[in-house]
Every structure is written in C-alpha cells, then in structure tokens.
C-alpha cells in the first residue's frame, strides 16, 4: 500500500502540475491578436449568446480561440515539425519542405482540367474585352520547378502544363507566349517565401518588355549599374516560414526605386469605395477625392494591418489597381491579369507604360471588370504563377 501512495502522489502531482500549470500560464500570458510567424490574425474570444450556444458556434469558436492562444504555441509547432521530420521521417511538414536553404510547398500533380479552365477563362476575356488587341501571357514557375524533382520530391509536369496551355489558347485566339522560365533560377526567390526577389528579376522585366515591344523604353539596364536605388527591409519571414515551423534565417526584401517609381501613383478599388452617404460609389482615378498611394507601400509595414512585408510591393492583395506613371517614356497603357508575383514586377515596367492596370481575378468577377477597365488600345498581359495555373478554380 505504501508503494501505491507515492506512486499515486507522483501520478496525480505531475498530472495536476502539467495541466494546472498550463492553465496558469494561459491566464497570465498577455493575449496576442496576431501570429507574426504564421502571418495571420488569431481567433478572438467568442461572445456567449443563446444563439451561439444553440448553433454551436460558441463551442467551435472557443476551440479555435484556445488553439490559437495556447502558451508556447510556436515552440509546440516546432516540436511537432521535428517529430514529423526526425521520428516519422516525413519529408515535409504541412506540405512544406526545406532543401537547399529554401522552404517550398509541394504542388502536384498537374491538374489538366485546371489548365484548360484557365485557357477558357483567358479566351473568354479576350473575346469579351479585347478581341482586336495584342495579348501576351507568361507563366512564373513556383519553387518546386527548381527544387522538387532533383531532391526527390514529387512535382508537376511543367512542360506538359505550358504545352497544354498553349494548345488550348491556340484553338480560339492568338496569344503571344513569353518564356520567362529560362530567365529564372532558385536564387531569384526568397528563401522563406513563395515570391521572387524584385532585385533579381530585372532580366525578366526586360524580357517581357522586349516581347511587348517596349524594351527600349525601360529606364534601367540589366548590368551591375541598374540605375535603381536599393532599399532594404530586414527580417522578412515569408509565408512558408510559419507553415514549416522550423528555424530558418529571415530574408531581406530589397526594393528598387528611381525617379519613375517615386513619381508614380497607385489607385486601388478597395481604397476608393467610400462608406456612409457615398456607399456604393467608386471614386475612379482622376476624380475628386480619389485616394492615391505610392507604388511602394511602406505604410503597410507600420500600420499593423498587414502581416506580410511583401505587401510593400503595390500594397498586397487588391482586386483592381491602376498605376499612373507620369515620367514614362511612352503613352502606352498596359493591363495585367495577375497574381501577387506581379506586385514586385510592375514597378520595373513603369518606365515604359504611362498607365498599368492590375486585375486580380481572385478578388473580382471577370464580368465586372468592364465597369472599371478601359481596354481600348491597351496592351494585355496574363502573368500567373504555376500554382494559379494548377488551381484556376480560384479565378472568378
């Protein structure tokens, strides 16, 4: 019996210390509203009402709240990652793998239906809005293109993807393909993020501009002296850093400015939809009261609203943006159907285009863009990364 006494003591004692200790830490730990490492807002304390009890939303929201605010959350996620990698010998954690100093997200297999859907979407837009104009498209490879196959990870058949997209587009329309894949290497991407580095894609910008016939108007060279001033934003933890939950060195964002980018101004739909008495109206560029911002949104670093330092490029996610570049060499206009990769590319094209319109079909219905975008006489470019091509269902 004596043996059981101390056994019971150890068991109950450690049990209570473990659970009650966590509860105490929970109580005294200051409540965070955002997780910087996961780059997301944390769940807030749910409100207890009869309705929320009856429809179970209070319980569900409480579960989310407790998960989000658990003490040592990042450390525990790291423990899980180490267990998955080192004990279970998994080659990824949450579909993120780390090789050659880069974190990348698994993307496979090739979804041919999605490629065809994208081609149909592009063709439909061409038929509806710009049947007479010159249209180009380019595909940005995701990091798997450079890392997956040679490191034993599954990857898509990228050649098949591009060939299929080209074949589908050629059925009904004439799109010019710009092959930028050969201009890129893995070093052109951030280590902890999905995106490419602006300072390393000058040749890509030149290639695109050359293909569209405005290469001679660009105000920078591809050599060492580009004519740009480099600015650094340190401690950039990209989107894969949080998901991988493994220790990685942060990246440094370098953004490039010159007189052209300094004088350019950017209008975005979301910032020009006033509330109150003017609700429902949109202040278009050039209209009185329209909100215009610089192309590099340094304010996003400080306002606490953005969790992603990459948002410094064109302000991050937006359905529709119009960038006016008064110092451009030409009066030409460009419309880009794009994803987030374009945000860091577009400042490099401002020397060649007086106006660049960015349309992100993930956030705006393609049937609505005619209300805001004037395609007449504009060059049109479709620039999507391979993950979007493989998941075209997200385009509206």
């Amino acid at each position, binding site marked *: 019996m004596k043996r059981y006494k101390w056994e019971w003591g150890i068991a109950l004692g*450690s049990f209570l210390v473990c659970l009650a200790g966590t509860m105490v830490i929970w109580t005294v730990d200051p409540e965070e509203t955002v997780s910087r490492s996961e780059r997301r807002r944390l769940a807030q304390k749910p409100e207890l009402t009869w309705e929320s009890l009856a429809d179970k939303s209070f319980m569900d929201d409480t579960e989310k709240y407790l998960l989000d605010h658990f003490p040592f959350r990042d450390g525990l996620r790291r423990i899980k990652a180490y267990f998955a990698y080192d004990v279970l010998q998994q080659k990824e954690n949450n579909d993120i793998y780390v090789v050659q100093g880069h974190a990348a997200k698994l993307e496979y297999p090739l979804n041919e239906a999605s490629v065809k859907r994208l081609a149909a979407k592009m063709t439909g837009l061409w038929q509806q809005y710009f049947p007479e104009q010159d249209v180009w498209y380019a595909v940005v490879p995701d990091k798997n293109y450079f890392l997956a196959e040679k490191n034993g990870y599954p990857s898509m058949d990228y050649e098949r993807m591009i060939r299929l997209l080209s074949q589908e587009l050629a059925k009904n329309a004439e799109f010019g393909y710009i092959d930028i894949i050969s201009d890129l290497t893995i070093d052109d991407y951030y280590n902890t993020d999905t995106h490419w580095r602006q300072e390393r894609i000058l040749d890509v910008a030149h290639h695109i501009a050359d293909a569209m016939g405005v290469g001679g108007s660009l105000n920078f060279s591809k050599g060492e002296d580009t004519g740009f001033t480099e600015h650094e934003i340190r401690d950039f933890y990209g989107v894969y850093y949080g998901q991988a939950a493994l220790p990685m060195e942060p990246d440094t964002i370098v953004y490039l400015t010159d007189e052209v980018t300094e004088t350019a101004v950017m209008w975005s739909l979301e910032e020009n939809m006033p509330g109150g008495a003017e609700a429902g109206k949109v202040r278009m560029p050039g209209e009185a009261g329209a909100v215009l911002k610089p192309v590099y949104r340094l304010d996003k670093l400080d306002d606490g609203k953005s969790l992603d330092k990459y948002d410094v490029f064109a302000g991050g996610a937006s359905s529709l943006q119009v960038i006016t570049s008064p110092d451009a060499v030409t009066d030409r206009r460009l419309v880009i159907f794009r994803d987030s990769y374009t945000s860091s590319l577009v400042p490099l094209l401002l020397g060649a285009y007086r106006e660049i319109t960015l349309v992100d079909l993930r956030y705006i219905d393609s049937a609505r863009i005619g209300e805001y975008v004037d395609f007449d006489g504009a060059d049109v470019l479709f620039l999507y990364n391979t993950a979007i091509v493989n998941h075209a269902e997200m385009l509206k």
Partner: protein
Amino acid sequence: MLFSSITFLYFFLPATIFLYFASPQKGRNLVLLVMSLLFYAWGEPVYVLLMLAQIAVSYALLWLVDRYRARRAGGIFYILSVLLPFMALFYFKYFNFFMDTVFGIRTKAIALPIGISFYTFQIASYCVDVYRGRVERQKNIVTYAAYVTLFPQLVAGPIVRYSEIERILTRGADLSHIRMNFGNGMVRFAVGLGKKVLIANVAGEFVSEIAALGQRDILLSWAYAAAVAIQIYFDFSGYSDMAIGLGSMLGFDFPENFRYPFISKSVSEFWRRWHITLGAWFRDYVYIPMGGNRVSMPRWIGNVLVVWLFTGLWHGAGWNFIVWGLMFAVLLVFEKGAGRLYDRRRFLPEAVLSGIRHVYVGIVILVSFLVFHNDSLSGAWADIQALFGAGSRIARNAGDTQMAVYAYLFRNRIVMLCIGLIGSVPFPAWLWTKLRARMQAGAAGDRIVHILRTVVTAGLLVLCTAYLIDGSFNPFLYFRF
C-alpha cells in the same frame, strides 16, 4: 467534446478531476452527471435534450415494470422500455436509408446525434438486465443518468453494462482503489491520445493523399489498404484506451474493447479481439436469445446472418456496412465448415497452417476495412481490385513523373506505417514488461520505472498537444456511429 481537444485536456479534464475528488462521496454521481451533460452538450447542444428524454422515459418505464411486474402491463412496459430507444435510433440513423431503399423516396437528411448507437445499447441492455433480474433497478435517477451519460464512454464506447459499474456508482470507489489505478489510468489515457493523434490522424492524412490521386500503382494500393486499417484501428482503440484510462482515474473499471485484433488467426478470433463489448452485446442480447449455436445447422446459419447483419447496420446505414457485416457472417460459417473438414485429416505442419491463417486474416482485414471505409460499394470494389492490379484505380500508363509521386508518397509515410504495424501487435507491451522487470530488479527499480512512466506520459501529452495546436481537424471516426 473531443478527448483530443485543448478544451477537454486543459479545461474540462482538470476541472472534472478536481470537482469529482473534492466533492463528498455521495455527490460524485451528481458531479459526473453534470460534467457528462456539459461534455455532451458541447458537441450536441440540442440533442442533449433527446438523451435526457430517453433517460427519463426509460427510468419511468422501468419504474412501471417494477410496479406491474406480475401483470401483463409489466411486460408491455418492458417491451416499450427496450423498443423506444431503438425507435429513436431507427429514426435518426436508419429512416433516410430505409425510405430510400424500400420506397425509393429521398427524405430530408436527419442529423445523427453523436454516440446514439452507444447509449441506446446501454439503455436497452440495462432494461433487459433489470427485467430479467440480473441487476436491481436503480431507483436514484441521478445515479441512473450518470450511468447512461458517463462521459468517458458516452460517445464512442466501450459499451459498458450497468452491472459492470454498479458497485462504483452505488457505493463509490474507495481511495485505495483510485490510488492504485489513477497512475495507470493516466498512462492509458496518454497512450490512447497518442494512438489517435500521432498514428490514426497521420495515417488518415496518408489515406487522403492517396485518395486524392485518383489512380495509383499496386504497391501504393496495398499501402493505402494498410493505412486505412491502421487509421481505423488506432482511432477506435485509441478512443477506447482513453475511455478506459479516464474510467480508471475516476475509480471505474471499464471492460477492455480491443486485444490486438490484427494477430488473430481466424475471423472468429478477430471478433473476440475487436470491439469486444459490441460483440459481447450482440452475443448476449441477440445471438443467445435466438438459440445461439444450440440449434440446427440451417437455423444456426440464419442466426449468424441476423447477428452480423445487425452488426453491420450498427456501424452505419449504408450498403457497404451491410455487406461488411454479412461478409463476416459468410466467413464465420466458412471457417466452421472448413475447420471441421480439416480436423478429419490434418495434413499441414502447425507452423505452416498458422502462417496461412495469419495471411488469410490479414487479407480479410485489409479487404473488409476497405469496404468499411468507403462510402459506396463501387468505391470499395475499385479499391479491392487495385490490390490485385485491376480496376479503375490502377494507373496503367503512368509516366516517370507519376511514378515518382507514388514512390515519394510511400517513402514519406513508410515509418508511420511501420510504427502502426508494430504498435498493433503485442511486441511493444512485451518489451515494456521485460524492461520493467529488469529495472525493478534493482534497488530503486520501482521508482525509476514510475518516474520513467510519468516522463513518457508527460512527453506524449506535450507531443499530442503540439499536433493538436498545429492542425485543428481531428474528428473521431467512430463518432458517426
């Protein structure tokens, strides 16, 4: 509420333990009842009323049975006490399927109350046992309600009969009993949590990865079948371990529900090791009342078919569950016949026979769980065909890229599969017993063993918490029953 949730682990459980042991012996059933209702209402805020209504009705009917036992009315009240819970179960679980199958009418979907199959069987067995005089009717409605709602086993078993916990419910567990069992219960709970979170959930990810591919090669098809079996076994046995562990911590001795079913050498042995409390329930309340095996051969076959039809249906209202149950009935009849034939002329060495039987049960387990796992029979058939290189699931002209994907998926989860397979046989328990015996031989051996056990338990808790924090989706498979 899920056992494998932060709410349960770090709020509900410590609060329940504290309140349970802080309250006087007489008040403990009330604490259990209140906490069990809270536990159930957290997941089923509306259906908790249904459960309470069923408790009240069965309590009242048994009171009437007692009062009118000598008269015909007593028998009617008894029949009602058994029938009504099953009518509720039929309505919530089988009505849609019945209307669709029999009349071809698609009716509006009815949400299934969590755990209704488990507590229906508990209420029914209690009513039968009271009527037949196996147990005394519980006159205290709080105690009776505490039995039906007892949170450790409420939503996914094991199916505990009133007689098995009557003593603790009525007299309370003495402190020395709890002292002996609390530590073991804690370890058992942590092991169950680990089985669920670290093995079953990870196997489930693997199953989803392969299913998402659409097509695969033969090797991956076998890995898929193994992962399905591992997921189902570790999910369900993990829950049972947690339930038994929690019961021990509160002073109860719940019956075992799994005894390494994958080491069986026959289907009948498999069912003596798999979901033991369900098998025993059907044996005692359906099979034996129908005459069991003390009847003519055709009647016995009929009895077996009825029991396994119900066993299949208990798991769900779907043709796959019916086929799954009847498949075992056919195999049990086959085994009996084949056994008799073989006994006349034993021509194989025992070791060879044993090997053949293991392979036979292994294939039966893999195939049966593919039927169990799939929502449709056509999907199950496609998965079974894929094991033999046939059917629509097999990629016939897979290119290098596709083959690389198959190889990667297999390599990525091979350690988990191995851990799952090793964990489903008695080897780890045997190893621990040996290790413990060796350590206990030393002077401070006992203490080292218990400290080690506590450290491992705490480690499992931390690791499981880490997994829960990292991914919030982990429903128990058996909740749908």
